[in-house]
Structures are given as structure tokens and as C-alpha cells.
């Protein structure tokens, strides 16, 4: 908790730094209101996913600078808390790493009033890095099978034949592997295990979920805890949001896709993978389904997407304009500020769908 918030502060400070150092032209554009931002007045409260907390703090800060009449407050607390708060009518929208389940959906729909529905809007996407601490090894390929076997504690040495096969010509030390996973429930675990389940096939038998299910390894609280563990332990490996790997100077591997090709973690590769996702929800309920089976060697398959959950209609009339304005900013020019926090902006086609859904908020 505390390390995470400390990092948030650090990232926020880093964000300020880049703004200020970017020179006059950039500085001007960041203080002037982008043309597509519609202002609303009043206040909004929200809670939920900590995975998108960094993005939200940047967004709320920017939007309140553009629109001085607006007051926005995003408290973390986790996706479960976000959904519960939203369903109980405590907050105006929720941030969640998982789309609403059928049961939650009916409760959330009821909260929005008769005939209205709550919708999931994918708003923040980012890559999950497989970070490792292996002195002397700068570049590492890990196939989905190998990652699965490492995290299931079936591969326990770095010079295991399976890892050597992924990395011809690389001299791997005979060091024990110490895998780190999240000990708290998290969307990062959910998406990481989803990737393993789909791309590692029979090597991963633990399904996917927000709680870690495989045996062995060390659990750490929060992504900050995992990053700290990997950084301080030679021979360690762990999965984390990219910003934490960058922040802590942790190397990350090229990960294997369903075809066994190794894909580098770049913004283009992540967006490419996101653009292959299909919408599984109905209407404007934009629940994404990733295409893990694709054969594109330039699509990084280990990604995280987090949603905003909001009433499409039936919002408090005083707040509807602000909600629509803020969400319009998130889906519009707000996407452009994501890159500096280790996230990736939504692919254009998906972004247009989100914008179309936001247009109908009332």
C-alpha cells in the first residue's frame, strides 16, 4: 500500500518534471485546454483499480487544470471495492480491472435506475513486463511454456534446458530461480494468468483469476512489492506493470506468443495486440476479448486492460455533464498522456467505439 502510494507520488513528480522540461511549445499545449475537452462543473467521486491509479491521478490533475469548476476524486482500494462502491451508489463511476460479472451487472444496472444499464469502458491499457534479475544477462527470451513452468515451480534453475532452448548462444548461470507473484488479488495477476492459460496451453494448469493459484514462489503485496523483490533478489523473476520495471531498472524478457515467436515489449507491439481484440459485450458495453491465438510476431500478448464502469443513462443530472466531459477527455486527448506513465493509448478503432459510447452518457 504505502510503497505503491510512494511510487504514485514519485511518478506524479516525474510527470511534472517532464512537463516543465519539455520546452515552451509543449508546456503551452499542456496547460491550454485541448479543443476536444468539454468542461463540466461540480464534483465526481470514484474508487477502484489501483492499476489505473497512476493514469487517473494524471487525468484528474489535467482535467481540473483545464476546467477549474470541476472537482474529481479517484480513491484506489481495489477493483472489488470500486464495483461495490459504485453499486451501492457511493461513487459516480468505478475503475475495475475486470468487466462486471453477470451477477454484478444486474446489481449495477439496478443502481442506474429502471431500464438503464451500467457499461464497461476500456480506458487504460498497458503491457505486463516479465522482469528478471540475472546479472550479466541483458536480453532474454522466454516462451509462454517456459514462463508457465517457471511460475509453476517446475523449472527451478536458470540454466534449465528449456530456458537454454529459448536463448541459443546465451550463457545462463546455474542460479536458482526465485519467482515473485502478487499476494493480493489483482488485475495484473488476472491478465498474466489469462495469457499463460491461452498461450502456454497444457503447461499452465491453474486457469486464470485475480488470486494466484500456482504452488511455490514468493508472494508480494502490490506491484511495488513484486518489483522490490525482483530488484533485491539475484535469480528472481516476476510480472509487473511496465512502469514499475522501468522505475526500478529491472530488465524484462521478450515473451513468446501462441506460435512460440518471441515478441519484444514495445508500444507499437502492445497496441498491435490490443487492436486485434474483439468486443464481447453487447451494445456499448465494451468488454474486450483478447486474441491470444493470433500469429502476428509483432503483437505483444501479455497485456492488461482496465475499465471504467459507469451508468450510461440515469446519472444525476447535475453530474451527467461533468461525467460526459471527463470521460470524453479520457477517451480523447487524455489517451495521449498515458505513454509517460508506462501505459499505452488505445488503438484508434477501439478508441472511436469508446468515444461513441461516451457520447451517449446522460
Amino acid at each position, binding site marked *: *500500500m*504505502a*510503497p505503491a502510494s510512494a511510487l504514485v507520488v514519485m511518478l506524479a513528480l516525474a510527470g511534472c518534471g517532464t512537463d516543465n522540461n519539455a520546452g515552451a511549445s509543449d508546456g503551452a499545449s499542456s496547460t491550454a485546454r485541448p479543443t476536444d475537452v468539454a468542461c463540466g462543473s461540480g464534483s465526481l467521486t470514484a474508487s477502484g483499480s*489501483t492499476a489505473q491509479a497512476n493514469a487517473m491521478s494524471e487525468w484528474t490533475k489535467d482535467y481540473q487544470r483545464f476546467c477549474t469548476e470541476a472537482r474529481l476524486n479517484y480513491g*484506489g*482500494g*481495489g*477493483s*472489488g*471495492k470500486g*464495483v*461495490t462502491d459504485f453499486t451501492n451508489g457511493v461513487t459516480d463511476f468505478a475503475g475495475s*480491472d475486470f468487466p462486471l*460479472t453477470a*451477477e*454484478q451487472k444486474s446489481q449495477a444496472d439496478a443502481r442506474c435506475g429502471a431500464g438503464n444499464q451500467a457499461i464497461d469502458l476500456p480506458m487504460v491499457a498497458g503491457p505486463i513486463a516479465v522482469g528478471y534479475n540475472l546479472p550479466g544477462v541483458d536480453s532474454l527470451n522466454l516462451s509462454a511454456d517456459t514462463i508457465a513452468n517457471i511460475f509453476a515451480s517446475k523449472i527451478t534453475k536458470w540454466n534449465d534446458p528449456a530456458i537454454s532452448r529459448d536463448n541459443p548462444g546465451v550463457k545462463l548461470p546455474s542460479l*536458482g530461480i*526465485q519467482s515473485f507473484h502478487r*499476494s*493480493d*488479488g*489483482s*488485475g495484473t495477476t488476472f491478465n498474466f494468468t489469462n495469457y499463460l492459460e491461452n498461450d502456454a496451453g497444457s503447461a499452465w494448469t491453474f486457469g486464470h*483469476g*485475480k*488470486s*494466484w*493459484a500456482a*504452488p*511455490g*514462489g*514468493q*508472494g*508480494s*503485496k502490490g506491484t511495488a*512489492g513484486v518489483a*522490490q*523483490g525482483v530488484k*533485491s*533478489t539475484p535469480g528472481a523473476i516476476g510480472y509487473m506493470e511496465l512502469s514499475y520495471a522501468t522505475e526500478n531498472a529491472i530488465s524484462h524478457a521478450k515473451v513468446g506468443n501462441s506460435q512460440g515467436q518471441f515478441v519484444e515489449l514495445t508500444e507499437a507491439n502492445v497496441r498491435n495486440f490490443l487492436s486485434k481484440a474483439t468486443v464481447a459485450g453487447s451494445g456499448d458495453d465494451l468488454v474486450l476479448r483478447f486474441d491470444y491465438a493470433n500469429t502476428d510476431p509483432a503483437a505483444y500478448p501479455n497485456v492488461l486492460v482496465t475499465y471504467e464502469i459507469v451508468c450510461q443513462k440515469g446519472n444525476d443530472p447535475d453530474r451527467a455533464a461533468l461525467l460526459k466531459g471527463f470521460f470524453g477527455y479520457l477517451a480523447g486527448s487524455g489517451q495521449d498522456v498515458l505513454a509517460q506513465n508506462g501505459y499505452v493509448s488505445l488503438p484508434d478503432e477501439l478508441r472511436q467505439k469508446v468515444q461513441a459510447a461516451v457520447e451517449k452518457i446522460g
Partner: protein
Amino acid sequence: MDSQEPVPVEQVGSVGPVGSAGSVGQVGSAGQVRSALGGSAPPRRAGPSRRGSPQRLGDRLFRGTSRTSAVLLVTLLVAIALFLLDKAIPAISQDSRNFLLNRTWFPDESPPVFGIAALVYGTLVSSVLASVLAVPVAVGVALALTQYIPRRLAGPVGFLVDLLAAIPSVVYGLWGLIYLVPAMVPLSRWLSDYFGWIPIFASDGVFGKSIFTASVVLAIMILPIIAAITREVLDKVPQDHKEAAIALGATRWEMIRTAVLPYGRPGIIGALVLGFGRALGETIAVALVLSANYEITARILSPAGNTIAANIANTFGDAGTTGRGALIASGLVLFAITLVVNLAARAVIRRRSEFRAAAG
């Protein structure tokens, strides 16, 4: 802090709800609550207020306020208990395995699967280990402060010990995570290399986050409580007893063994219980330091184990409806454990005091 003399009063074995003094502060208040509950028409105490024919307004007001407070407290307690039961029972009834014996925690899957066994085990083992590590040091500190160090110095040193108790637990957790976990690796490896033949020190080569490390953090956290109470108790040892021991030719250590420690024993046990209770309920420090999983293993050096409180801290944020109910149910179990520990401690204290009363 309750600094009643640990001398048993005559009321031992009488109707008085509290067996003896020297037990912990909570005990006293619990006793008051009980008498407030049981005595619907408590006998009026003969006091100065009765002598004057009409009761003064202030007296009536005060009595009314204090009665209301007592009733309010009990009502609140009952309401909380009912609320917890109300949330916990539906979750437990949805559990597809045995809540008490299962060792997994997936309450939001369908069907929900969760059980408390590993959590209870981890809670008890880490707290017992922490107490074992903390008590000798705490008693040592208290003895040094009361018997060895000159008064001039004892004050400041005692203050420093108390200061340890004022550090927020999240700071202990961060310190444990960032400093202690890496620092424990060599010690854990050494223990495992040379004492690995003892099952609890066996290991498969992964060190750092373990029940052992968590216990060390907990031990440091509960040390000041135990030390402070023990110091208060040992400070109250009558000078006559000590002088008598020395007059009989006892060395300082013999004096401590024969006069000081026996006198302070009920108080030390009370202190231990308070410390143990804090260890049982400690949340965030343990959540940060433990590698949470749901295995039951005797190997205290391996990255396994979880506690009830840490599990609540870890999983509450992302828990769904059943998940929250399950966590609340686990909280009830923790409550029950604390209750049993407190009752057992009171029984022990009472027996010891009676024994001493008879001997004295």
C-alpha cells in the same frame, strides 16, 4: 496502562467477576461490562450521596450517563457481532468445501472454495514464534531497567523502549520488506545448512519471505508492550522482599530469581497475552513481509504461510460479495481465537495468584 499491583486481594474466589489483579487492562473493563449487564438492579452503594436525603442532580446525571455508556457499549458490541454473523453465514453456506479444514481461498470463483485452516495455522505459528522470541528479551529489558540500571538512566532508556511501541505498524512492515527480508536470507540459509535435519529448518533453497521473518518483525513489534508492562510490574516488587532476600545472603541474581520474578509472574503472563494478542491481529506488517499462500508446512524458513489478518488486508480490495463474507467469517474466527487465548490466560493468572496467596 493498567498498573494495578499484582497482589491477589481477598476477593479471590468471591463473586467478583475479575479473578485477580495483575491481569491486563481489558480484563478489568470486561468485568465492569459484565457487572453492568448482570446487575439490572445493582445494589445501591452506601455512600456520602445517600446520607443527604435527596440525591443531588449531579449524582443522578453522572449515574445516568455512566449507565447509558455501559448499555451503549454492550449494544454496539452485540450489533457488530450480529452484523458480522449476518455477512459471514451466507458466505460460509455457499462454501463448497469445509470452511474449517480447507486450505484454499477462492471465494469469488463459482462454486466458491475457501477454508480457514492454513490461515489459522499461520496466525498461531507466527504469533507463538514471535512471543518466544520477544519474551526473553522483554523480560531482560524490564529486569535491567528496574534492577540493574541506575534510575537516572532507566528513565530515558525506558522511554526509548516505549517509543518502539509508537512506531506505526506499516513502518515496521516496510522496514521488514525492504531491509529485513534480504538481511534474513543469509541467516535463513545458515540455519537451513546446519540445522536442516530439524524438520522446521528444512528448506528447498528459497529464502527471504517466510513465517520466520514475519515472526521476527512481530517480535520486535510486541517487544515494547511486553517490556513496558513487565517493567511496571517489576517496579512494584516490595522493597522488603528484595531486602529480605539479600539479607539472607542472596546474590543479586538469586534475589531476582527468588523475590522479583515469582512476584511478577502473573503480570508477565498478562503482558505476554497482550503482546500475543497484538501479534495475532497484526495486519499490514505481516501482509508486507509474508509470502502469502495457503499451504500448511512446518518449515518456518520456506516462503509459505499466511495469517487471517494479512489475508484480509491482501484480498479485501478485490473481493466480491462472497469474498467479503468469507473474509468477515475469517475475522470471526480470529475473534474466537483471541477470546480463547484471553480466557486461558486469565485462568492461568488466577491459578498462579491463588497459589501465591496460599503460599504467602
